[in-house]
Structure formats: structure tokens, C-alpha cells
């Protein structure tokens, strides 16, 4: 095992441990996904040929290409999910600001009462 593998496997193991601690406190689907991802990273780091075997089995030549495609798709999916959440929160903020503005609307004083045309 080379230095690169030792450093990164240690890092991934710490992250997997932290994720596991959160999982034990309560069930979170996102944390479970991260826990599985950290374990997969450890497995691939410990056995670099595994990614090539997986790549070959799905018709991709190199393991690194398989990992790149997988990460790219995961990143895009994650980015889109965050965007949707951001838009939802933005909309909720606007609704809140709107209701506050309407509740606190100042009305024309008696001197300024408009006469509808």
C-alpha cells in the first residue's frame, strides 16, 4: 500500500466513522448515502483494479473513466437537487415577505381618501 492510499483511506475511514456516528443517532437517508459512498471509496482505493473490472463489465475501457463519469453524473444530480431546494426556499422567503408586507400595509389617511373614478 503506497502513501497516497494510506492518506486517503485514512481520510475516508474518518469520514465513514463520522457518518456512522450520525446514523446511529437517527436514520438519515442522506447520511446513509454518504456512508456507503465513503465505504465504496475505501474499497476502490484499497483495490484500484476493482474500478477497471467494474468499468469493463459495463463496457467502459478504463476504471478512471468509469469513476469520472460516475462523479460527474452524481455532481450534476446533487447540484440540481440543491438548486431545486434553493428555489423552494427563495419562494418561501418571498411568500413570507409578501404576507408581512400585506399585514403591515399602510392605508391612505382620511385626508387622502381616493375617490374611485
Amino acid at each position, binding site marked *: 500500500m503506497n502513501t497516497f492510499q494510506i492518506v486517503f483511506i485514512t481520510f475516508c475511514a474518518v469520514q465513514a466513522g463520522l457518518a456512522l456516528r450520525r446514523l446511529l443517532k437517527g436514520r438519515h437517508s442522506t447520511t446513509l448515502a454518504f456512508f456507503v459512498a465513503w465505504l465504496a471509496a475505501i474499497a476502490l482505493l484499497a483495490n484500484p483494479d476493482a474500478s477497471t473490472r467494474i468499468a469493463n463489465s459495463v463496457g467502459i475501457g478504463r476504471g478512471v473513466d468509469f469513476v469520472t463519469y460516475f462523479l460527474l453524473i452524481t455532481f450534476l444530480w446533487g447540484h440540481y437537487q440543491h438548486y431545486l431546494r434553493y428555489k423552494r426556499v427563495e419562494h418561501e422567503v418571498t411568500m413570507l*415577505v409578501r404576507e408581512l*408586507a400585506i399585514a403591515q400595509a*399602510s392605508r*391612505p389617511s382620511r385626508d387622502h381618501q381616493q375617490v*374611485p373614478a
Partner: protein
Amino acid sequence: MKVFIVVPAFNEGHRLARVLDDLSRTGHYIVVVDDGSSDQTVEIGRRHGCYVLRHSFNRGQGAALQTGITFALREGADAIVTFDADGQHQTADMPALLEPVVSGRVDVALGNRFLSSRSNVPSARRVVLQLGRVFTWLTSGLRVGDCHNGYRALSRKAAAAISMKQDRMAHASEIYDQIKSAGLSYEEVPVTIRYSAETLAKGQKLSNSVSVLFQYLYGKIAQ
């Protein structure tokens, strides 16, 4: 017939005062929606005898318009006019804009600056607006002669059917989609839009068109 004029305003200052001077002579109810301005917008609105609503912080013109429309509906509006605070819209056009809605002929009257010979649309903006017109046709199916013209009159039925979720400038494209999807009838009315060096400096830049396009497309994806 209760007509409410909704004026979204963001740091329009003295231009807003001039606009409200004119609007107060129409005799209609005026709703100023201060979209988190740091100037005297609230005081100016109160001084002119308007309903004044204040967004705690800036949410964009689309959000401010929807706030004003929601408020006007709750106050029992029969028709609603949307009017810019920067002085580009002319109060003199309002009776003609309201007529198709008030008479019950259509649900929405859309201002069209190109039907008026008095509009001084800069040529570069004219080109962008023509492209926008084609874009509106492709996305909403609505064949309009002008687009992103904020001068409109809505019947109560139309105002209740339209619910803008685009907080910023893309609401101007979204509204066409909603007119189409809600099956609202509409008509275009000539209105004069006066551009000045001041309004061109503060208003929408042509370069913003791309940003508005992306806001609109992203918004469509997120729905």
C-alpha cells in the same frame, strides 16, 4: 368599479414622486410596493395618499407586483393596472388600456409600445424586444407585438388566475405563459413608453436579457 394601480418601486425616489403626482389625478386606488428601497419611497407613497406595502428586503419586481396584486384582490379590486415607477409609462394611456377590461371584452389588456408613434424606443432595444417577441411566441404560444412591457390591465378574474413565481424580471415572460395556460382572452393597446437618459441608465440593460432568459428557463425547470 374599483380599479387599483399597482406600482412596484425600488429606489425610484423623485421619479416615483412625479409618477404618483400624475396617478393621483386618475382617481383610482394606488398601491405602492416598496421592494426594500433605501430611499424615501415609503414616505413619498404615504404623502401621495397611496396604500404602501413594504418588502422587508429586496425580492425583485415580479415579487413586488404579485404582492401588490394579491393585496388589491383582497381589497376587492375589480380591475388592476400594473404601472412602472420610473416614469416611462404615461397616465394618459390608462383609460384606453382599461377600456377593454372594464367593458368586459377581454380579461387582459397588454400595452404595446410599437403601436404608438410617440414611443422613443432605442434601436438596439427594439431589436432585442423583437427577439423577445419571437421567444414569447415559441415558449407561450402567444403572438404579441411587444413583450416585457409592464403596462397592463387585468380583470379580477385574470389577476386571480395569474400567480407569478418568478420573483425577478423573468415574471414578464411568465405572465404570457399564464395568460395562455389559464385561457385568458387578451388584446393589445397602444401605449407610449418614454425612454430618457435617466431611465435607460437605471433600467434594464440589454446585457440583462441573457440573464432574464436564464432566470426564465431555470424557473421553468424548477416548476
